[in-house]
């Protein structure tokens, strides 16, 4: 296990976990329609990153899974969506939304820094495979961060001054 494989593992874990957080946020904020729909679109990017890291990992003797299979809506996710609808008429979930967006942003920022490390390591090691992987995925991670930042900027004036 060297620094490169450690970084690949960390990215694999980070993208899987961001995908999961995005899915959970999409369910929990079912009544915030833009968050609900775009978060699901962004899951696709993290899943794709996960797949690409796993593929690349094979060249470094890593055996990493692909993204989790999309399961049918289970009890927990249905419960999350129903509870979102139940409190959809109340202002307090707005604070939870800002909290979740912040967590998503930090998770994406964590991944972004790993992509930075991987790209640097790839350049130092003259390893084109790593540089290509990072230069494909990193811009999308930055776009995930800009999305959460934009939503926080747009929504917080209303949410924080009305509760």
């Amino acid at each position, binding site marked *: 296990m060297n620094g490169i494989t450690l970084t690949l593992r960390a990215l694999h874990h980070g993208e899987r976990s961001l995908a999961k957080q995005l899915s959970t946020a999409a369910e929990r904020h079912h009544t915030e329609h*833009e968050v609900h729909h775009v978060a699901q*679109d962004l899951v696709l990017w993290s899943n794709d990153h996960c797949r690409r890291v796993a593929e690349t990992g094979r060249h470094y003797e890593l055996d990493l899974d692909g993204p989790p299979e999309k399961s049918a809506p289970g009890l927990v996710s249905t419960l999350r969506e129903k509870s979102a609808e139940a409190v959809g*008429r*109340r202002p307090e979930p707005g604070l939870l939304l800002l909290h979740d967006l912040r967590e998503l942003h930090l998770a994406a920022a964590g991944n972004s820094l790993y992509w930075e490390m991987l790209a640097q390591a790839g350049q130092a090691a003259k390893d084109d495979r790593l540089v290509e992987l990072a230069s494909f995925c990193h811009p999308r991670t930055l776009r995930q961060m800009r*999305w959460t930042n*934009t939503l926080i900027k747009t929504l917080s004036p209303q949410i924080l001054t009305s509760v």
Partner: protein
Amino acid sequence: MGNWVDRIAEPWGGRTPYGRHQPWPARLDTYLAEGVGPDDVERWVQTASILHSDGDAMDIAVRDGAMVGVRGRVVDRVNRGRLGPKDAFGWQANASPDRLTRPLVRQGGRLVETDWDTAMDLVVSRSRALLQERGPGSIGFYTSGQLFLEEYYTLAVLARAGIGTNHLDGNTRLCTSTAAEALKESFGCDGQPGSYDDIDHADVIALFGHNIAETQPVQWMRILDRLDGSDPPCLICVDPRPTQVARRAAVHLAPRGGTNVALLNALLHEIIRTGRVDHEYVEARTVGFEELAKTVAPCTPEWAADICDVPAAKIREAAELLGTADKFLSTALQGVYQSHQATAAAVQINNLHLVRGMLGRPGAGVLQMNGQPTAQNTRECGANGDLPGFRNWENEAHVADLAKVWNVDPKSIPHYAPPTHAMQMFRYAEQGSLRMLWISGTNPAVSLPELSRIRSILGQERLFTVVQDLFLTETAQLADVVLPGATWGEKTGTFTNADRTVHLSDRAVEPPGEAKPDLDIFLDYARRMDFRDKDGGPLVTWRDPESAFEAWKRCSAGRPCDYTGLAYGKLRGASGIQWPCNAQAPEGTDRLYGDGIAWAHPDACETYGKDLVTGASVSVAEYRSLNPDGKAVLKAAEYLPPHEEPGGDHPFQLTTGRTLYHFHTRTKTGRTPQLNAAAPDVWVEISAADAAAEGLGEGDLVDVTTPRGSLRGRLRVTGIRPGLLFVPFHYGYWDAPSGCGPDASTPGRAANETTITDWDPVSKQPLFKTAAAAIALVERADGRPSAAPTTTASAPVPALAVPATEGGPAAHVLEVREPDADNSPGSAR
């Protein structure tokens, strides 16, 4: 002399063929009420059409203080004297007996008549209480695409600087926000690049999701006249329905709903692959080509054929036409704007023109269309989620400039976040932070998606709803205060069509009862609220339409939509004039961007742009480094699958849309005898193959159901794309037994019972074109056909299956070819 034509049966009337680069010949259309001859008309009063975005210039005939007919204005550049069916007949709705004539307030759960003082006192006291207890963010305004420029501007000033709220948007959000956003993304700023005159010069015209024959029928007359003349253009039509445009197209592509980006990326792929890029233009005028080329490199016609379900060969054929055209014109409307990835797709249409260098010259242009007659003004006056005059809310210098015009502190104009869009306002109302919503000139209880949700939001006790309208609409019935508005023909003002042509619309008759012009209502509110500027003077300094127009001219000075060269006197008696109109261009400007991309510089642009997939803002620093010299931005977008796809219990794709004979939620067209009779009730379109497979036929009564709700209508079997159902969105409940929404007496009738709450994250325009639906038989037709017109995209298959749509003598319009330029009256009937 002239011809009498049944303009319900023949909506586009007779032909006046003309050749390429020739001027479009005039044709004077006149319609007068039964028993009225030209000599009976006391006055002709100048105006333009208010029932679509084309801006057909017309005169209202007045006798004994009443409207008795209309005629086209031959001098006008837009229509050269022609009228569409809605122009010819729609004016009759003004005199409907059920017009609102007095304010209403809710007492003990019922709306009761009252006087203006009582109603306005209620609105003002609630506004003051909310400002004190909850702040300006608790008040929102939802306006229209059907008021006048002067009214939007006044509303924008009182909402943004008077109340100080960020929550002001128009129903233009549903019709034209993607057009605005796509122009902003590509050119840094809103503003229609092309001109209708480009129809005269183009050799290829591509219509993307734009059923122009039904939405702007007079411009379709122009295309038909060119098709019948020498050197006619080739049409490319992208539409899943067999529209009149599709029937006349050289290439018709009928893609699966929600796949426009895949199709457009394949067209760009082909143009690049076949070496049709104007590299000199791209180098001089654009940034971002490399990224675009990289994004579309894998998007072969075969790849797109799989996604869109159209033959790859046809995609190649369309690309070949675009790639070899001498001058091509593209237009886009709701098939793009109300569909999945709306802005991303509309931007790729701009990209087709930029990579081919086809912009700003006669015949080479883009028309990102509007649906509504005055939507352009909602946008430019700052009532559609932007600051007035296309100022950039993120640019402190722009905000300071606006504050100077209004003589207020910049901090009193909210600009810490983007102006709130309509769907978000309804969400704030749902979640309880928005407590007062003032709705003017629109009917969200029929036009917004997922109506059960909208009705429940508007029906909340804690939300104080003010509705300003002509009739007791489905929305007005849910209001706390209803204010009776005067409409077109009863008030004076200006409005601007989809190709930037500004028209004056004069008052012809008095409004009914105590109804007031929307401008007067807003001015009254501003006065009662006592809004002040920073020196203690009144914030709103004007008192009538003309002084409001003069105030707007000061706000527009030096902006892309510069009106300083216009005046009521200049517009009266003449043709409409295209903005910008100022000292440098006193006769207006036919096309933008002929001499470079004027408003994309970082210091000038209206926006720094957004991510086309996520809607995230691009920062000023990023924009500066990407586009330091202010060129057009070639923005690439990857295709994403739609959020709701057919399958399982909901095997059909469902799209909603328009028909020629109606406008919006039929508040006027449903009260116009000829138009109502042409399409009196909702229907459901299905392909012949699907009808056969489901054992269904013409006229069968069916339920169409989605996860949100259902509607009931009679079936029309057409040449629509298999797998797709179509329902017109115009129908609601005011003329159904229940009056307001579905109940035990009235099954669902509005298409929006079924639509999904989802919007394009970039333009925030709701999606109406991609829902998954099921269909179920309720009752056999038993010989009764559906109410769908036979003259339009809803034509039956086989053609003779149902009686043809006709208007009879009551729909006869007099058409005179080669009329005198002074609109001399036609011969008596």
